């Protein structure tokens, strides 16, 4: 036997050794490479899964229930298959979001909900109590066994403890010591995001110790006390042939359902027990360690279980089949065989197994309590202190002690009534309830906060009712009445036969009901309720953590943003000044800071996120969010949306990466500046390829006949869909989309309400389609359509948003193209008109004929570039010439062409036609024959002058009568000759008149532009004013007279430019 003092001393020495290991690890980290970068440390630390339950309990289980101890280790071996994507994903997310506990993880995923964090924390506290109780029980019992020989109890530990007050027993002292070590290892600083280097290394060391101890005792029993495996089995079967059942499954003892339940429970427990989360995820230093741990950890479990059966059988053989103390065969076998030092090694191994678990669990749960129960309260009370960090670390220490003692009280309450394994399974079941929220949260974006809250709460309730209540009953703490008659005497509510489900073991029963309610609530609420925007964003960050993160950083800004220093002050308040400054230095090292030491506007939201995540590492995600929000709102700062500069092309945050890339590609196509047709074709090709449409069509409105005409199409050729035009009416879906300026979607063509379309659509085998208007400046200009033959229901609301965005881009392309065309067109026309003007001007006489006794001047001012007026001097011989003035109605290109034609005609016929009347007659015929279809008309005045005889012969084709100033008589004469406008009738008689001019006479020919020039009141310049001008200026040379007239007309109208073409010709007979 070993004296109690020795046991105590050895235990304390072992703890001191652990602390030394932890301390060295911490020191080593400061100087060299951290021990955590060693993948063996990570793999061994995972073995914290193997607690005293494994160490002592497995043997006990094997002795009583045979193979039933195995599933607890087979489950984790199986789930290790998924670690490379599943565990790694959790690690990646936790690192990104600074997540430190499972409560943080679930709360973060679901919109950083404080409520969820609190639920998970409460659940974990309740769930961990039996487990900690189990460890305390194991240690206390092993100490008692080791130091209290049944033969001489007065020498043992009891003797020592008898001197203490009665409420202090071995377990109490153990709890105290473990709590102390928990504080020392886990809460020397507040920072929980920083790794607990020492704690992890100590845990890994403990794992090594317990493995060595167990294998040592295994070899001792198998090969020392017996002669190998086969020998033990043989002797066992000889001695207890009736216990062959132990090595079969599907027996009454271990039905297959229970076997299955245990596998599921252990698979979930290894992932979601708070301490496993801490060691596997929070303390993970390198994702590549997971790859090693995937096989090392199962190998560890295999080795530590290899000798479980031999020890159990050996124990039974040596104890005559008694299994009441089977839990401690590991210890009693070497003791009774006279090897106390081996027993001591086993004891140290068991101590390791328990201590590691209790320390890590208490630290983890304490962190959770602090972050999810205490912090929200502190924040709600708005306690205003300069520095919280000191208070927080003390709270955390207090929490660790509290958690350990909760376990202790559970042990005092329930402890003796349950075997180790059964107490452990209660905790496993609690951890299993986290599975839907975590797994769903990792892979299903729709999963939302309400669903997780209700699912977890229901799971918790059912777990409590079907598992914890029976354990209370068993301990006699509450009456057994509820088990026999159900709650309120309702038989359906019996905790072990809930809703009448009988004949299952307690764990299968509990697993079924708790998981059923949990899952059902989780799935259905996720389906039927909506996420908020921030929730959806968080869901994306979790589910797509390995994808390229599309950060909508540009979309938000903070109004009245705090400065960097203010953020630092805020952080200092919670985490202390030094860590806050270290954190901000880290942040600023990869961000630009301007000369004044402040961040550009768009970086401030990132600083806010950084601050929040840094705080989250210390106080948890939900409290961090509350802190930031409170802080910003008391400052009056707000996160506000920044308006999207693209206007019509807005993108929802919910759009997937694929969709965003399509929109991006489309905008590239639009901005590439190729021709419209090519742009349209490219966009349709993109749409068709990305979403596997059978047909995509773009139609634009043809305004001339108000139909939609196909401009581009991609996909199947179909006469109807791809090519034909569409009239605008509400009978068709496309018409409806265009006229109502809204997207029309048919997700299932089995249900159509427009018979006109239905027939064709079904004939073509279309299963769903959508039309969306292409809108430019608020008006539809066309329709973008997509048709699918294969899939129904493609057009989700998200997809429609994308589809509409694409239509918007097509609209932009269309508008760009149109504007470009109009601009080019205008330039082209301008150039053409300039040419026309030049040509036309060259048709007018460029130089005035120099004749004796006659002076000329002429002016033609077109209203626009070109006009329809025309005048010409045409010398016939030395003493005669013709003079013509004509006015073609309008002043456009048509007028100019006719004017040119007229000139050509006159010049061509000059030789063959003698008199003005004949000329006009010929012209009239020409116009009548060739111009009858045009709406233009031409007036003309044609005269012939013989210098020698001073005879003026003239004819008029409906032209304004020229003015003749008779110098001698001082009177003004209108030269009037009868004649019709050209082209009205085929044969017109043009009257030819003649008059004799005297020297000093002035003849003024003009077009209607001059006399019809209006002033602001609408009065015409008129023939009288013109006549007066001639009268006043009869002494002036022709050019001066023309200039004078023009000045006067301009003064009259008050305009520099005229609305009509103006032509003036002056001919003066010189004396």
């Amino acid at each position, binding site marked *: 036997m070993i004296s109690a003092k020795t046991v105590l001393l050895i235990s304390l020495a072992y703890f001191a050794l652990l602390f030394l290991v932890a301390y060295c690890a911490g020191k080593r980290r400061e100087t060299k490479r951290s021990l955590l970068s060693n993948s063996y440390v990570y793999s061994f630390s995972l073995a914290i899964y193997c607690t005293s339950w494994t160490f002592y309990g497995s043997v006990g289980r094997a002795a009583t229930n045979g193979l039933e101890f195995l599933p607890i280790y087979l489950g984790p071996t*199986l789930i*290790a298959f998924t670690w490379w994507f599943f565990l790694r994903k959790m690690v990646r997310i936790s690192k990104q979001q600074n997540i430190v506990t499972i409560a943080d993880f679930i709360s973060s995923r679901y919109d950083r909900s404080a409520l969820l964090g609190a639920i998970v924390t409460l659940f974990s506290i309740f769930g961990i109590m039996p487990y900690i109780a189990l460890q305390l029980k194991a240690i206390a019992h092993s100490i008692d066994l080791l130091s209290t020989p049944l033969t001489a109890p007065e020498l043992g530990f009891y003797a020592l403890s008898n001197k203490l007050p009665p409420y202090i027993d071995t377990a109490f002292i153990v709890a105290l010591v473990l709590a102390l070590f928990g504080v020392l290892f886990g809460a020397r600083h507040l920072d929980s995001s920083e790794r607990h280097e020492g704690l992890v290394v100590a845990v890994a060391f403990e794992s090594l110790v317990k493995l060595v101890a167990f294998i040592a005792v295994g070899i001792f029993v198998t090969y020392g006390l017996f002669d190998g495996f086969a020998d033990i089995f043989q002797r066992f079967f000889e001695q207890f042939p009736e216990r062959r059942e132990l090595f079969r499954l599907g027996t009454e003892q271990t039905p*297959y359902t229970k076997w299955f339940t245990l596998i599921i429970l252990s698979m979930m427990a290894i992932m979601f027990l708070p301490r496993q989360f801490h060691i596997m995820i929070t303390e993970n230093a390198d*994702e590549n360690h997971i790859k090693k741990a995937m*096989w090392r950890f199962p190998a560890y479990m295999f080795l530590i279980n290899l000798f479980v*059966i031999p020890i159990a059988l050996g124990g039974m053989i040596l104890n005559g089949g008694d299994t009441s103390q089977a839990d401690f065969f590991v210890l009693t076998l070497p003791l009774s065989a006279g090897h106390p030092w081996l027993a001591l090694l086993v004891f140290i191994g068991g101590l390791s197994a328990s201590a590691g678990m209790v320390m890590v669990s208490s630290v983890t749960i304490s962190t959770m309590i602090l972050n999810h129960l205490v912090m929200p309260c502190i924040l709600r009370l708005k306690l205003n202190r300069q520095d919280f960090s000191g208070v927080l670390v003390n709270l955390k220490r207090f929490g660790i002690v509290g958690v350990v003692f909760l376990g202790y009280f559970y042990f005092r309450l329930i402890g003796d009534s349950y075997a180790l394994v059964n107490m452990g399974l209660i905790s496993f079941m609690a951890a299993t309830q986290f599975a839907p929220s975590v797994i769903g949260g990792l892979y299903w974006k729709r999963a939302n906060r309400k669903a997780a809250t209700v699912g977890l709460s229901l799971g918790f309730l059912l777990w409590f009712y079907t598992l914890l209540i029976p354990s209370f009953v068993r301990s006699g703490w509450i009456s057994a009445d509820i088990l026999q008659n159900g709650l309120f005497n309702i038989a359906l509510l019996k905790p072990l036969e809930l809703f009448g489900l009988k004949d299952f073991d307690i764990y299968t029963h509990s697993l079924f009901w708790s998981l059923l309610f949990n899952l059902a609530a989780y799935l259905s609420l996720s389906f039927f309720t909506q996420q908020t925007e921030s929730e959806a964003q968080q869901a994306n960050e979790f589910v797509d953590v*390995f994808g390229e993160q599309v950060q909508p950083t540009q979309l938000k800004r903070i109004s009245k943003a705090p400065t960097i220093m203010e953020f630092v002050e805020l952080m200092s308040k919670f985490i202390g000044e030094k860590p806050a400054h270290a954190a901000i230095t880290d942040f600023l090292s990869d961000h630009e800071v301007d000369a004044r030491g402040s961040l550009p506007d768009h970086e401030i939201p990132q600083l806010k996120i950084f601050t929040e995540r840094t705080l989250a590492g210390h106080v948890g995600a939900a409290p961090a969010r509350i802190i930031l929000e409170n802080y910003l709102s008391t400052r009056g700062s707000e996160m506000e949306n920044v308006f999207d500069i693209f206007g019509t092309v807005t993108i929802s945050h919910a759009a997937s990466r694929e969709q965003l890339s399509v929109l991006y590609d489309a905008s590239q196509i639009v901005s590439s500046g190729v021709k419209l047709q090519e742009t349209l074709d490219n966009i349709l090709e993109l749409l068709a390829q990305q979403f596997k449409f059978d047909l995509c069509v773009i139609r634009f409105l043809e305004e001339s006949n108000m139909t939609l005409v196909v401009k581009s199409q991609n996909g199947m050729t179909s006469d109807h869909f791809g090519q034909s035009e569409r009239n605008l009416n509400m009978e068709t879906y496309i018409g409806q989309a265009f006229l109502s300026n809204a997207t029309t979607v048919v997700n299932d063509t089995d249900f159509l309400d427009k018979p006109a379309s239905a027939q064709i659509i079904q004939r073509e085998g279309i299963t769903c389609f959508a039309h969306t208007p292409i809108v430019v400046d608020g008006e539809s200009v066309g329709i973008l359509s997509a048709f699918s033959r294969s899939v129904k229901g493609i057009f989700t609301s998200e997809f429609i948003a994308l589809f509409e965005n694409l239509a918007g881009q097509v609209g932009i392309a269309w508008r760009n193209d149109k504007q470009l065309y109009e601009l080019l067109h205008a330039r082209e026309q301008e150039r053409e008109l300039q040419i026309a003007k030049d040509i036309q001007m060259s048709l007018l006489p460029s130089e005035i004929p120099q004749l004796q006794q006659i002076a000329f001047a002429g002016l033609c001012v077109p209203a626009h570039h070109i006009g329809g007026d025309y005048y010409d001097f045409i010398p016939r011989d030395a003493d005669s010439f013709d003079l013509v003035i004509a006015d073609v109605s309008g002043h456009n290109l048509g007028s100019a062409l006719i004017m040119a034609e007229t000139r050509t005609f006159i010049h061509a016929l000059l030789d063959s036609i003698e008199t003005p009347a004949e000329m006009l007659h010929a012209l009239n015929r020409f116009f009548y024959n060739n111009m009858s279809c045009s709406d233009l008309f031409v007036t003309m005045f044609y005269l012939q002058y013989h210098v020698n005889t001073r005879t003026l012969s003239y004819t008029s084709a409906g032209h304004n009568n020229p003015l003749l100033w008779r110098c001698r008589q001082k009177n003004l004469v209108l030269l009037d000759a009868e004649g019709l406008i050209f082209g009205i009738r085929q044969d017109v008689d043009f009257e030819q008149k003649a008059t004799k001019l005297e020297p000093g006479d002035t003849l003024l020919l003009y077009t209607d532009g001059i006399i019809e020039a209006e002033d602001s009141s609408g009065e015409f310049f008129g023939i009288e004013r013109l006549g007066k001008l001639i009268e006043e200026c009869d002494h002036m040379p022709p050019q001066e007279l023309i200039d004078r007239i023009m000045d006067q007309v301009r003064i009259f109208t008050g305009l520099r430019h005229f609305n009509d073409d103006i032509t003036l010709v002056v001919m003066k007979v010189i004396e």
Partner: protein
Amino acid sequence: MKDPHGNSTKEAWILCLILGIIMINFPFIHIFSNEDLIFGLPTLVLYFFVGWPASILVIWFFARRNGAEDENSSVDTGRE
């Protein structure tokens, strides 16, 4: 960055998981749940204590192969 082999390895892992679950559950293990002894050991005990290390070898093998592929990508997956 997305690992180009990510999906196929993921599928392989899930396949192994499903196979594993089948192989240690009813009805598959019912085959071994008898009272025969092989090398003096009960069939089911032998099945588990041979099958278990075998599955660990499978993980070891896959993880090593996976490791060769991921060695390059680990540079950028390592930090965050």
